[in-house]
């Protein structure tokens, strides 16, 4: 389907107890591009994102079948180093969730857990990731102030920077702008377009419009099923499936 798949989702089904959240999903996610997972709430987008960095591992009473491959390796194979996997696959959540502590502590939380001790290396990571998240200019003089003293939009970009500081290969964003004003949203979207040069990005947009704006590839999810997927330009203008088209044009939501 795509030439250079970074992530290959192979026939993945997932259940919370008796409730099927994902039903036989197969999808390739291309490298260095923004792939958008969209569809109405409850479609399984968030679940699928959380499966890609194994954040659902500790959720009880669930069953999964199928495989998820990153760089052709099954991340659910026995013996996979899960913390190491999560350093390769960053995650940004719907709400800005700064950890308690300063801007610096937040951004460097991941690297310090990973055992990076060199002061100069950490300073470099701090600046680079804040720049990538388009936040450096706003916070460079306030690095040691509490993260919670910044605005919601700044906090969310801080969370992006926090994920980037680990130099991941993949960035998963779950409605990262749902709590933000239009200006902050534009800033985040803008930084995504920069980031995709280096990273493989999967975005669950908070609106169809946002999806259409940033998608290189898109996949439409409805009630746990992948209805269709393809290049964003095609999917958002001439969907093949009636349900996709109805959703995009706002006939249901």
């Amino acid at each position, binding site marked *: 389907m795509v030439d250079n798949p970074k992530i290959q989702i192979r026939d993945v089904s997932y259940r919370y107890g008796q409730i099927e959240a994902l039903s036989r999903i197969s999808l390739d996610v291309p490298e260095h591009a923004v792939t958008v997972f969209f569809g109405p709430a409850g479609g399984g987008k968030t679940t699928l994102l959380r499966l890609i960095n194994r954040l659902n591992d500790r959720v009880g009473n669930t069953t999964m079948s199928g495989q998820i491959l990153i760089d052709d390796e099954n991340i659910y194979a026995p013996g996979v180093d899960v913390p190491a996997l999560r350093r390769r696959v960053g995650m940004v*959540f719907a709400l800005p969730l700064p950890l308690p502590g300063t801007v610096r502590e937040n951004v460097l*939380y991941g690297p310090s*857990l990973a055992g990076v001790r060199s002061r100069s290396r950490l300073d470099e990571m701090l600046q680079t990731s804040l720049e990538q998240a388009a936040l450096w200019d706003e916070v460079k003089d306030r690095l040691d102030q509490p993260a919670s003293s910044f605005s919601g939009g700044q906090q969310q970009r801080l969370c992006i920077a926090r994920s980037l500081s680990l130099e991941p290969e993949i960035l998963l964003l779950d409605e990262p702008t749902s709590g933000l004003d239009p200006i902050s949203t534009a800033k985040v979207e803008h930084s995504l377009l920069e980031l995709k040069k280096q990273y493989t990005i999967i975005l669950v947009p908070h609106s169809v419009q946002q999806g259409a704006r940033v998608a290189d590839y898109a996949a439409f999810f409805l009630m746990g099923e992948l209805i269709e997927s393809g290049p964003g330009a095609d999917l958002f203008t001439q969907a093949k499936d009636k349900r996709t088209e109805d959703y995009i044009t706002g006939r249901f939501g």
Partner: protein
Amino acid sequence: MSQQLAQKLGFVLLGLLSLVVIVPILLVIGAIIYSGLPAVSWEFLSAMPRDGMRAGGIYPAIVGTILLTLGTGLVAIPVGVGAAVYLSEYAQDNVFTRAIRLAIVNLASIPSVVYGLFGLGLFVLLLQFGTSILAGSLTLAIMTLPVIISTSEEALRAVPMEYRTVSESLGGTHWQGIRRIVLPQALPGIITGVILGLLRAAGETAPILFTVAAFFLPRLPQSPFDQTMALPYHLYVISTQVPAMPLQIQHGTALVLLAFVLSMNLVATLIRSYFRRRREW
């Protein structure tokens, strides 16, 4: 009656009610200070009791209470906080953990004299620690555990779940998230629980009655296997068991016990507010 007037009256009434809470505390403290302070001197604090405890000081009782409180903390803090971390962060919700929780709640409601008898049976007699600081500390620790566990677990659970998820999403192990984020956030609450528990232990008479407390022992304990005097028991003794006891000494002893407990409380409050300021982000 206008709503505003009703509201004002309501506030005044509530204010008076809370005043009612303060009054007995002030009265108790005031009365003890008034009648006990004249007895408190450097000699009272630092000398052995003399003349069948009717004169001299209460030094060994003070030392005994400090030692018992420390011993209790040494056992109860690691066990209690550890159990709380397990229950809040690791334990699944199943019959086993529910049984543990039920046991903790029930432990908290057992009268302290029953702990005393239990300590006598288990530590003093069965394990042959004898009437000793070790046996007394262990007994007090068991009594303190429920308080420490339940308040610490409460404090840990109050830390937003999202912090744990974020920590994991950044490549942290389960334990790293607990140690770096959850425990520091919960620390003020944990400290409160610990101090509350230890305060109760420091002031209790019944659990130490059969396990450690000496009626009259005008020397300091030399090892954990020694008996010791302790302030609450000493107070009980000189108030009921010794005829012709000067009232001043009784009240002086009560004042020292009260000062010990209140100053621990103060220290706890200071520590708590220090950590709270530090994490006020």
